[in-house]
């Protein structure tokens, strides 16, 4: 690490370096860009993967925490903090020129905290309507409902992107740019659309049937979860994570529980760990099955959709019997799990494994080798490894482009060090690679479950936890491999029973932000198919 400290100090001598949970660097806004550039261009260990961009309101100042990691070694992480004291007109410098992933994140920070980023080419508000009053994540946000009344009036969607650019002399120039050309044939795909996997809104400029440009517009299911977390105790927050990416509800909750446990130094009993990991993998299978089903449905194979959901139902049955929930399973709690496994759990899971393997073969016959399906997936929606990294696309989609990003391998948590499994990587980067990755990961998950199911140790399922959990002051961060990619929880605590700030890293946001790139010059039909192969869940993006 000293090597990295040298690089940091070389680039910005005034930087304040602390060794906390991870290496934390605090710099002035002016010095942010050179520092990040130095990290980005570091030859041995380029920090080219922006995990998360967290807008913060520290009351005296507004700022951003950047979390970087390296595509070469995912276990290396570094946090960069910068802040401005100007609350009226907060300005920071954008890093979109290096990290494409920063683009939508910066727009979100603008919507939530009002911080504008210099040199970001499109500073419209993300998630919220353009005329929303106030910045919700600010501590002094006025939540008076009369300020933002419910309306049924259709809002105009603006095509004009305001921006602040820095010219050669270092002067800031405000300007406005048009997103679409005057005579573009613009069609709304979503929000109420059968194939956008939720309420995503893609404004698509078409040239014939060829996609010319896509403008991602989200927020149709923005529920303000991060703000709600600030007024809730830690056990109360738990149920909200299930509803982020509801397809990997258990894994999301696992991340939050681990983050709290790490901070409060709670030791989770072994039995609970086993149950957690088995449930996580079952959850992953169900998530991938639904992704498979929905992808096939997007390509027009309704029957495949029904088959996928049929197999998924077996997993849901196990969930139902274990924790009384099918989709939102409410299993993990701080310190362990809420429900012990039921007596026939092992039997049911063991019956499911060979059944699923048999079905995987059937899926291959039915869809994976179908010439129509191949034509619609192979060489469609190509995403290179560099694109995947700069857009921070993780999960099966990122690994389809050769980006080795499985959190279970690189930053093992829970029992993943003990079990043996392969990271599924393909290098083609097309829809088919992503599609096959999911099927292969189902196989790997079955393999993991097989290793664990027989030796669930006896014992407690819940550690002793104080009735009121207070996390010591500090910043805590924990990531897991969810169904769609790296899901992470960031908690800043001031020692209270409420968190000061909670941020969820959404893997789906990255998957959507790359859509305009990989869908360009593809047909409208393929645009839908590529969306299916990226497998995003909108509530995860909007939070």
């Amino acid at each position, binding site marked *: 690490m000293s090597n990295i400290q040298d690089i940091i100090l070389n680039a910005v001598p005034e930087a304040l370096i602390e060794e906390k949970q991870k290496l934390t660097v605090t710099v002035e806004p002016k010095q942010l860009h050179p520092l990040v550039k130095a990290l980005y261009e570091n030859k041995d260990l380029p920090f080219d993967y922006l995990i998360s961009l967290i807008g913060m309101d520290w009351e005296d100042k507004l700022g951003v925490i950047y979390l970087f990691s390296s595509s070469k070694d995912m276990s290396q992480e570094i946090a960069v903090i910068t802040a401005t004291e100007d609350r009226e007109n907060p300005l920071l410098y954008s890093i979109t020129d290096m990290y494409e992933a920063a683009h939508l994140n910066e727009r979100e920070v603008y919507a939530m905290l009002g911080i504008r980023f210099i040199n970001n080419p499109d500073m419209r508000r993300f998630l919220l309507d353009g005329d929303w009053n106030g910045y919700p994540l600010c501590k002094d946000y006025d939540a008076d409902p009369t300020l933002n009344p419910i309306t049924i009036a259709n809002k105009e969607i603006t095509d004009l992107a305001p921006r602040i650019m820095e010219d050669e002399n270092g002067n800031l120039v405000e300007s406005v740019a048009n997103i679409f050309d005057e005579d573009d044939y613009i069609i709304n795909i979503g929000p109420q659309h059968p194939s956008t996997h939720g309420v995503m809104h893609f404004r698509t400029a078409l040239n014939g049937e060829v996609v010319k440009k896509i403008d991602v517009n989200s927020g149709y299911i923005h529920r303000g979860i991060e703000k709600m977390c600030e007024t809730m105790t830690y056990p109360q927050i738990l149920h909200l994570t299930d509803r982020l990416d509801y397809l990997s509800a258990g894994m999301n909750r696992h991340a939050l529980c681990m983050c709290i446990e790490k901070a409060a130094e709670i030791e989770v009993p072994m039995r609970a760990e086993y149950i957690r990991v088995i449930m996580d993998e079952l959850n992953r299978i169900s998530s991938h099955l639904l992704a498979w089903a929905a992808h096939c*449905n*997007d*390509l027009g*194979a309704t029957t495949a959709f029904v088959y996928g959901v049929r197999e998924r139902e077996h997993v849901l049955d196990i969930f139902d019997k274990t924790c009384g929930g099918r989709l939102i399973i409410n299993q993990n709690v701080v310190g362990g799990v809420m429900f012990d496994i039921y007596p026939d759990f092992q039997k049911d899971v063991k019956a499911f494994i060979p059944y699923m393997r048999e079905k995987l073969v059937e899926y291959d016959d039915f869809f994976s080798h179908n010439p129509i399906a191949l034509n619609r997936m192979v060489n469609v929606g190509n995403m290179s490894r560099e694109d995947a990294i700069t857009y921070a696309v993780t999960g099966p989609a990122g690994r389809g482009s050769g980006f080795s990003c499985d959190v279970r391998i690189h930053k093992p948590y829970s029992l993943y060090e003990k079990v043996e499994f392969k990271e599924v990587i393909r290098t083609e980067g097309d829809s088919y690679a992503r599609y096959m990755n999911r099927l292969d990961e189902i196989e790997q998950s079955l393999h993991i479950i097989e290793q664990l199911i027989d030796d669930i140790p006896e014992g407690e399922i819940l550690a002793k936890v104080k009735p009121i959990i207070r996390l010591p002051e500090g910043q805590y961060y924990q990531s897991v491999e969810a169904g769609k990619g790296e899901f992470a929880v960031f908690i800043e605590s001031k020692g209270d029973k409420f968190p000061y700030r909670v941020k969820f890293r959404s893997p789906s946001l990255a998957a959507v932000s790359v859509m305009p790139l990989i869908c360009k010059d593809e047909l409208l039909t393929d645009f839908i198919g590529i969306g299916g192969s990226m497998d995003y869940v909108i509530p995860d993006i909007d939070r």
Partner: protein
Amino acid sequence: MKQPLELTGLISNLHTFFRSNLTPFWATVIEGALVLIAVLAAYAIIALALIYIERKITAFFQSRLGPNRLGKYGWIQSVADLIKILIKEIIHINKVDKVLFYAAPFFVIVSSVLTFGIIPFGQGLQAVDFNIGIVYILAVSSIGIIGVLLAGWSSNNKYSMIGAMRSGAQFISYELSAGFALMTVVVLSGTMQVSEIVESQRYAWNVFNGHIPAMIAFVIYLISGHAETNRGPFDLPEAEGELTAGYHTEYSGLQFGFFYLAEYLNMFIIAAIATTVFLGGWMPIQVQGWDGFNQVMWYIPSYVWFFAKTGVLIFFSLWVRWSFPRLRIDLLLNLEWKYLLPINLVNIIVMVVVVLLGWTLEDLFPIFRP
């Protein structure tokens, strides 16, 4: 041959009854009215039955049960749908091209009824029998696409528009293949009149009579017919997943019902024409010389034969529909222009050679000659 269950006797009795009791004018009028009612009734009943059958078979392919709560096995489900759709509001959309918007369902329905009229459902159960039957089929069935294009264009909706454009390209392409495939049979049987084509298949169905080229033509006809009806995997103009409901997005109530009805009817019509032209129409299985067997086969009425054969083809079409993903427009056009059309062109020549050299089944084994 005894044919106790045929309707030919009934029809000729009615005919003589009207002719002997009424003036020729009124006889014609009443006969016309009867034909009209018969066509309408058959049309409606077949449509309702098909909707039910399709939903049920679809469910079985998807390991579901399908409608089963109305009547036994849910067999009156489509009646409920009919009632529902009849009383559904018809929305008047602003800024549509009014005339075209309201005319579109007419085109679609009239086209399918006209094609429906030429299908021989059984002995004597054919309304229209032009001597240029095949050309008639191609001509009237292509009116339907005008309806689709008008619907998409006039709706003032972008999805509809794209759907209509797609269907235009799709239809004109597959129209060619369908035409050429039917032409192959015309070469074989030497006539375009539908009744004569059926008659010529008394002992050897065209698909066997013309063996290799006829079979190729049969497959091509099925594919292109399937494509013409806009049904999966060729359902691009509707493409539920992409275009919400494609060209009929803006249609509601019975106007939409007509599109829905015509879609199912067209599926039936394509299967019926394929049956008529390739599979011997309403002809029962006959073997020259086996008189006892033939008699037994004739006891089964001709319309049962017809519907059985058509049913098999419809089942096949559903099977394909629920097994494959949707094609992309370029794949669709590739399939037509790079595969079906060239193969078709060669196929016709092969058929001519087969016919001229006397290699058809009837020529090789005169026993099959009617």
